């Protein structure tokens, strides 16, 4: 079998629908059409009345999910693109994220965000906005980087009693393949050492994991052994795994596709600087997208986001300090 990342998303949803009668999916074009990316292909047919088309109303989609969760259901909301979730932002951060804290009633909703850049995506179909959601208390924010994680983490997200922002990277949808779906997996909240090394730690997540892995391969013939931490969840953030890796290598480079101001890479550097200052042999560094909207043309886009080459260059510079 040859399963892609998007197949894993679809299979996880089919699995959840099959196992739990409380699960339903609501989103734009997801019924008979199967979704803009085909993440719900044939699911409306297999699970009649449980995979439902919504009007183009992101605010009301999330509001409906919160109401359904209060009534004991486990809704999955598909945002057509993560970028459009900002229209439903209020319901996510003020309604879903505060419900448990205010009322002690959990809010088990999963909001799927197809996110991140693809060539030609442009300013409004490419954004990485995990940071804004991670900023709000009450949300869990996941960023799977592999086919296996896309599957197991989505299943776990739906089973959790809390609102989950599930960031699935569009660039990985058909780019990644796996032999089979996993029966066991690391739990949410645990980072993974994606490659072992002793000279420098790269902490990254989602599509940037693959750029980092490529950079590590490029640096290997030069004699550098790069360790790579795949965060998997950005909230909660597995500080322990990061710190242990930095303790081994003494050097830290954080790589994210999101914009540079604040954010996941800044958060990691802040934590390592305050709690692991003595572990560092050099000032920690980070690499992010440029601080502009995401450009349309491939020439501009590849320069806007970190690439394997850019990661390797940043790593080389840090290795030589």
């Amino acid at each position, binding site marked *: 079998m040859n399963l892609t990342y998007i197949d894993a998303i679809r299979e996880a949803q089919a699995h959840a629908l099959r196992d739990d009668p409380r699960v*339903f999916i609501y989103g734009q074009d997801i019924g008979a059409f199967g979704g803009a990316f085909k993440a719900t292909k044939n699911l409306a047919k297999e699970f009649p*009345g*449980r995979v439902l088309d*919504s*009007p183009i*109303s*992101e*605010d*009301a*989609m*999330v*509001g*409906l*999910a*919160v*109401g*359904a*969760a*209060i*009534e*004991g*259901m486990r*809704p999955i909301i598909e945002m057509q693109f993560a970028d459009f979730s900002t*229209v439903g932002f*209020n*319901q996510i951060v*003020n*309604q879903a*994220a*505060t*419900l*448990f*804290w*205010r*009322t*002690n*009633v*959990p809010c088990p909703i999963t909001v799927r965000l197809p996110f991140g850049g693809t060539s030609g995506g442009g300013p409004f179909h490419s954004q990485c906005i995990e940071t804004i959601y991670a900023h709000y*208390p*009450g*949300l*869990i924010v996941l960023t799977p980087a592999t086919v296996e994680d896309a599957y197991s983490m989505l299943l776990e997200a739906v089973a*959790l*009693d*809390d609102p989950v922002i599930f960031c699935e990277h569009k660039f990985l949808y058909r780019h990644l393949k796996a032999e089979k779906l996993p029966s066991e997996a690391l739990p*949410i*909240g645990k980072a993974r050492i994606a490659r072992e090394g002793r000279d420098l730690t790269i902490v990254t997540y989602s599509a940037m994991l693959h750029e980092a892995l490529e950079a590590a391969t490029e640096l290997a013939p030069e004699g550098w052994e790069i360790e790579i931490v795949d965060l998997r969840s950005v*909230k*909660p*953030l597995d*500080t322990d795994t990061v710190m242990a890796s930095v303790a081994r290598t003494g050097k830290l480079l954080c790589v994210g596709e999101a914009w540079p101001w604040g954010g996941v890479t800044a958060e990691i550097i802040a*934590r390592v600087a305050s709690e692991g200052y003595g572990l560092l042999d050099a000032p920690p560094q980070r690499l992010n997208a440029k601080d502009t909207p995401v450009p349309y043309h491939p020439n501009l886009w590849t320069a806007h986001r970190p690439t394997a080459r850019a990661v390797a260059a940043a790593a080389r510079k840090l290795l030589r300090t």
Partner: protein
Amino acid sequence: MSTRELQLSAFRFMLLARLLDDKFAALYRAGKIHGGVFLARGQEALSASIGVSLKKTDVFAPLIRDTAGRLAFGEPVLDAVRTYLGSPLGPMRGRDGNVHRGRPQEGYLPMISHLGAMISVVNGVLFARRLKKISGTVGAACIGDGATSTGAFHEALNQAAVEKLPLVLIVADNQYAYSTPTSFQFACENLADKAIGYGVESYSVDGTDLSVCLKVVGDAVAKARAGDGPQLIVAKLLRLCGHGEHDDASYVDPQLKSSPLGRDCLKVAEEFLLRQNWTDAATIAEWRGKFAREIEEAVGQVQREPAPDPFAENWLAISSEHLSETHTNHE
């Protein structure tokens, strides 16, 4: 329930709500309340009509000025007092206050401050009930004229219409959104006309008249319950207080105050009940005394309750404790 019994029941909730609000205003002036106090004065007839028209198994998302409707839907006076005073024994446990209170698992949804945001949440409960094959329940959501300008209102009413949900959306058109008059809020002649664009049935009602409010709200709830889809009610009235007790409402047009809209619905209802001989002044005085005592007792009890303890507080925003962020400033 006969018309007489229904009117008397609604009137008692109006009276209780007015007295409770008066008490909150007094506590506010005495500096006993943290944050704002938001009164329902002038809106009791409409609000009580909603509360008494719903069953306990229905869904209710009240807004700021629904003291009467909350009580009629079954909220104990103690819940209201505990929330205003921030008692950890109340439904919001000092984590949220004043009008932000409810018991979601009993169909009583606690509003967030963002106007129009509760409508789609009511839709969600109704949608889930349909998926669970539970029929015959209705969801009521309350908003003001200001909230009709929000995207959330549009999205949610349209969503309810598309899904033919048993939603009753009640707009208290009280002439001002904080200080903004309706002329800056909408340009159509009557807010109820907006329903046409959504393919939804609508009603206009004099919000100062309990009898007609009960009739119109009751009919709309019955239609929604019967499967006729969403219903929009627009009640015209005047807010007889500031937005909150911090607001002297000096901007309210004096002509509006002296117009029929400016009538006090509680007085109108009382006069009507007396004229009908459905009750007498002595009975009303007796209710007034009983409610005042009930409120005083609740306030006294809550004031003796301990305040929330920051050291005993479980500072956790998610229910999955094993996924809590361990990195905080004080560690």
